[in-house]
């Protein structure tokens, strides 16, 4: 099993990956963000050689995301503005909170460690650098990720994910995370 693994996946790749994955292919996704996160983590685990659902509560998930969640809120709000309060969708409502996207992954993969979600405006590097140090404090291993739904050159979003096991000191973890999340996404899309 690898100690540090990086995965980056676009939404179109995530769709293909989910269809080919025995656990994900029967899963119904409410929103593309959910699909992106779930397929991204499945591929990260596959790349790291980790079988899932997990059997122990020692995995944490730290997820940064841009304003992609706002589009879900807009959909939800337009329904009630146009049709009244009875048009509020109980299915869509949970997805108006950013942590639901991460929560979906915790349920599907059995991630029972820490789960923290961070709305990020521009670069996620600073936030993830700080948060990566939590791997020392919380559980032995964790996933750090960033969802980017806006890109000048592409129509679909991406998620960049890193799996890190606690075999580092603080300085090394910071350095690894900075390297992973500062790389140019386009160069690394597969």
């Amino acid at each position: 099993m690898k100690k540090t693994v990086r995965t980056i996946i676009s939404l179109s790749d995530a769709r293909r990956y989910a269809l080919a994955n025995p656990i994900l292919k029967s899963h119904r996704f409410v929103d593309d963000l959910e699909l992106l996160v779930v397929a991204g983590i499945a591929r990260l685990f596959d790349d790291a050689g980790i079988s899932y659902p997990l059997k122990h509560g020692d995995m944490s998930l730290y997820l940064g995301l841009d304003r992609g969640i706002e589009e879900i809120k807009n959909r939800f709000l337009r329904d009630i503005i146009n049709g009244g309060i009875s048009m509020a969708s109980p299915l869509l409502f949970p997805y108006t909170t950013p942590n639901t996207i991460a929560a979906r992954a915790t349920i599907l993969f059995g991630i029972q460690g820490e789960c923290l979600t961070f709305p990020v405006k521009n670069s996620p590097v600073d936030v993830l650098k700080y948060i990566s140090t939590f791997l020392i404090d919380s559980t032995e291993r964790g996933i750090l990720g960033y969802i980017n739904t806006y890109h000048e050159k592409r129509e679909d979003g991406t998620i960049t994910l890193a799996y890190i096991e606690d075999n580092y000191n603080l300085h090394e973890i910071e350095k690894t995370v900075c390297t992973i999340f500062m790389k140019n996404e386009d160069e690394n899309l597969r």
Partner: protein
Amino acid sequence: MKRVFVTGMGIITPLNPFQGVRGFWDGLIKGTNTVRRGMLPLLSFSELVAMARIDDNAFPEPVELTERFDYLCNYAFRMAIKDADINTGIYSEQMGLVAATVVGNVLYKERVLLEKGRLNQDRDQLCYSFKRLYDEYHLKGPFITVSTACSSGNDAIGIATRLLKAGYADIIVAGGVEVINELAIAGFLSLQAITDTLVRPFDRNRNGFAPSEGAAFLVLESEDSMRKRGVMPYAEVVGYGNRADAHHLTAPHREARGLVAAIKKALKDASLSAEDIDYINAHGTATVYNDLMETKAIKKVFGNRAYSVPVSSIKSMLGHSFGAAGVIEAICCVMVLLNNILPPTINLKEPDPECDLDYVPDMARERDTRRVMSLSSGFGGQNSVVILERA
């Protein structure tokens, strides 16, 4: 390991709003109910909804609905740093901000969508108001917005504490802000989670929470910085735990798997045992499943001692302010430590036979209190626990 202390507090809730921490605390120990049936702020529905909203007339000046979030945020932040006697001009280099919200300034979005206008994409972000605050005070330390549903506030405190312990800053202001809005009310009505009358945590007839609003900030500071500045602490943050249920998007794990793990983690973080805790501030939303799950979690961790540790829910008085709730409740916990008085759970008339702990019903109670634990749980199976100790 560095120690982290609370050196300043700022708070605005529907309970004696804009009257500082003392006004908030006086209202709490009197058992004041702030929940009323009211109209939604922007959309005209015939239905009245139980909610705890800050009276418009209580604001020091007229504030547009779309500016309400920013106003509460700025005002409570200023209260906190003034209370901590911080001159941001001197300390901004070593100061950070960790702030929590679930829906952010959603009233701005609602108004723009209602008027079919164009959203300013910068402003239409959860971290927008907090970033503006961070920039306005020229802070240079860590800046993080956290959104973990109803446990966001506790997570803001926990994250800030860890960053201070790791040496990323000397001072971090941790806070949470939320405003009453259509999105949350419509959503929770669709899930039948909102009460039609009173908030009755742990009562046999409980039928949901009342949405609320508020802003609260804690100034958290390393021991070195506090001593250098010559200020006295209110309390020490000694433990934090966060664990996921990994169970359901909207319902808690029936056997409290995540909350039990979060409590154990917080105790371990604080190097304490359940025997050391003198009071528990419950999440206590008054939904059927939360209160039952929370009671089970306390029993599982505390064993027989669960029956002798007082537990209360101030949401019975204040309603549920989602991302702000954890920080508001942490300020309540600090006041418990300072005053040795426990706030009551009001509206608890017929206890649920399965919720059989000491919930401090109706009346505040005096009790020597050295360490307190504050619990939060939220959508997505979020669980977060903070432990505070008398300084």
